[in-house]
Every structure is written in structure tokens, then in C-alpha cells.
């Protein structure tokens, strides 16, 4: 199987370029295995990876035009030759490694932690299974960045639009029956940029390797806002 891989090392290359590699495809091979095989051929080839089972969120890359997690992208589902590039719209540090600091900064902006005003009980804060169900589809995010870096609105205004990942996280806390800072959370999302740059393009939904739906979460936030406003 042939791979065309994005290469750039700021110390040795003036321009990025694509390099071809050929890998012997074995049964059950994932894209990460192929990238590791490429690394055995050329030790200078660099990408992030860790758990190998789609939970740590390290190895998000752009494959044949779509953002995927390499460790759970079977080679059998990829068109040969496979073109592997870094996430679009982020500054490249080297090869497939991009600078995600802005993505993390946007996450921090939504105050992503549970906020209580009442004093804490001695035991657990009670929550019914139905209330807990509201968090399904929100809390599972692994912060790989596949969604936000596939979002045109995030490409256009990465400094001002929070992006699908951060908004999904905002929704996770708005939806938590234990959280008591809903008003403040909504206030923090005011203005034309942070939330309302989403134009329901839905690239995030297609990109999410965990099958989550940030667009739906964003719609949910808007609905809560509207309800609060009326």
C-alpha cells in the first residue's frame, strides 16, 4: 500500500513536501501501524500517538481529506494511495505534529469544571439515571481535535469562535443536573463570536471519531439560551 506523507522539519526544510512510502499491508492493520512502519523506514518521521485504542486522542491526522484518529482507522477503509497530512488550519511544528495550544485555550474558556453553589453533601450529590443520561454523548469527548480542526468557522476565527470541542464541553456542564452555574456559562457564550459563528456546517459530526455530535450540542445551547431569554 502506498502512502503520501506530509513532511516538514523547520530546521532542515524551507518548504513542506509530500513523501511517498510503501508499506506491506497486514490483516487488521490500522493507519497508526502503517505510520509506525513508515517510522521504521525513516526514523526522522514524526507523529504523536500513545494508547493505540482510540481513547487518549493523541494521533488525530488528516487522511485523504478527512480528520481521523490513526489508531482506529483501518487501512482497508482507506483509498490507495493514502494521503496523510497534519490537521488543517493549525501551525505545523514538524511533519504531522501541529500546535494545538489555541484549541486547548478555547477549551479553558468555557470554564470546563463542575460548579456548585450549595454546600456539598457528605456523600455523593444525587442524580437520577435519567439526569445522568443527559451527559451521554457529551462527556465522552477525548479532545483529539478532529472536530474543531475540521470546522470552517474555526479556521476563519480560531481566536474568537470557541469551536465544536469547547462548545460540546460547555454543553456537558450545562446538561449536568449537578452544575449550578448555568446562567454564568450562558453569559460567557454571549456575543457574535464564541457560540454563534457555528453555521451548522456539521463537519465536526462527520469528523468525530467517537461518534459524538457537537452540532447537536451547540443547537442545544442555543435552545437553552432562547428559553432563558424568553
Amino acid at each position, binding site marked *: 500500500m502506498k502512502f503520501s506523507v506530509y513532511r516538514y522539519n523547520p530546521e532542515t526544510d524551507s518548504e513542506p513536501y509530500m513523501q511517498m512510502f510503501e508499506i506491506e499491508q497486514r490483516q487488521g492493520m490500522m493507519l497508526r501501524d502503517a505510520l509506525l512502519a513508515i517510522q521504521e523506514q525513516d526514523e526522522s518521521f514524526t507523529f504523536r500517538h500513545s494508547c493505540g485504542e482510540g481513547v487518549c486522542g493523541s494521533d488525530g491526522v488528516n487522511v485523504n481529506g478527512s480528520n481521523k484518529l490513526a489508531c482506529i482507522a483501518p487501512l482497508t477503509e482507506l483509498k490507495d494511495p493514502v494521503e496523510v497530512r497534519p490537521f488543517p488550519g493549525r501551525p505545523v511544528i514538524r511533519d504531522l505534529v501541529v500546535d494545538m495550544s489555541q484549541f486547548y485555550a478555547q477549551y479553558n474558556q468555557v470554564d470546563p469544571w463542575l460548579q456548585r453553589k450549595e454546600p456539598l453533601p457528605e456523600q455523593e450529590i444525587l442524580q437520577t439515571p435519567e439526569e445522568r443520561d443527559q451527559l451521554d454523548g457529551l462527556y465522552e469527548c477525548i479532545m483529539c481535535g478532529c472536530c474543531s480542526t475540521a470546522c470552517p*468557522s474555526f479556521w*476563519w*476565527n480560531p481566536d474568537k469562535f470557541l469551536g465544536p470541542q469547547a462548545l460540546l464541553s460547555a454543553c456537558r456542564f450545562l446538561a449536568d443536573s449537578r452544575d449550578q452555574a448555568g446562567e454564568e456559562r*450562558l*453569559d460567557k*457564550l*454571549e*456575543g*457574535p*463570536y*464564541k*457560540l*454563534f*459563528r457555528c*453555521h451548522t456546517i456539521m463537519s465536526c459530526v462527520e469528523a468525530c471519531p467517537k461518534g459524538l455530535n457537537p452540532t447537536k450540542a451547540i443547537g442545544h445551547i*442555543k435552545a437553552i*439560551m*432562547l428559553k432563558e*431569554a*424568553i
Partner: protein
Amino acid sequence: MSRRASGLRAWFLQRATAIYLILFLLYLLQHLIFNPPDSFAAWQGWVAQPLVGLGLLLCFASLLLHAWVGFRDVLIDYVHPTAIRVSILTLFGFALIGCALWVMQTIFLATVA
């Protein structure tokens, strides 16, 4: 509602005006199919009815507001230097106000005629 006006109000306005536009255009379409006016006077008479005049006024108001929000969205997405964006928005705003005055004049003239 004012607290989150620039985000939520714009978003809501765009959707509310869209719904009104769809409904009013459907009404307009059925009117033109089933009662096509055959003369200028008939047109004028139709527009002169208070309800129709109000509906038209609201239709154009919606159209202009809808255009304003949409155009503003496009500028926010693509035009990042503040000075240029504000200048274009101001020009566009004046153009829209001009259109609004023209519409009001037309409907007013039809009503008094």
C-alpha cells in the same frame, strides 16, 4: 434578552424573519396565481388594503433585517481587519436604510392614491 443581544438576538432574528418571509411569500404566490391583478389600478388597490400594506411592510422589514444579519455574518467570518469590516458594514447599512425608505415611500403612495 439584551444581555446576549449581539449573538442570540441576531441568530433569533434571522430565523424569525425567515419564517415570516416563507409564510408571506406563500400568501403572495397564491394571490398571484388565483387573483392575478390585471391593471396598475388593481395592483394599487390591492396594496392599498391596510392588512396587505402592513404585511408587505413587514415582509420588506424582514427581508432587510435578514439581509443585514446574513451579510454581517459573512463579513465577520471573512473580513477580519476591524476598520474595513466596519466601513463595509456601515455602507451596507446605509444602503439597507435607503431601500427601507424607498419601500415605505412606495407603499405610502399606493395607500394615499
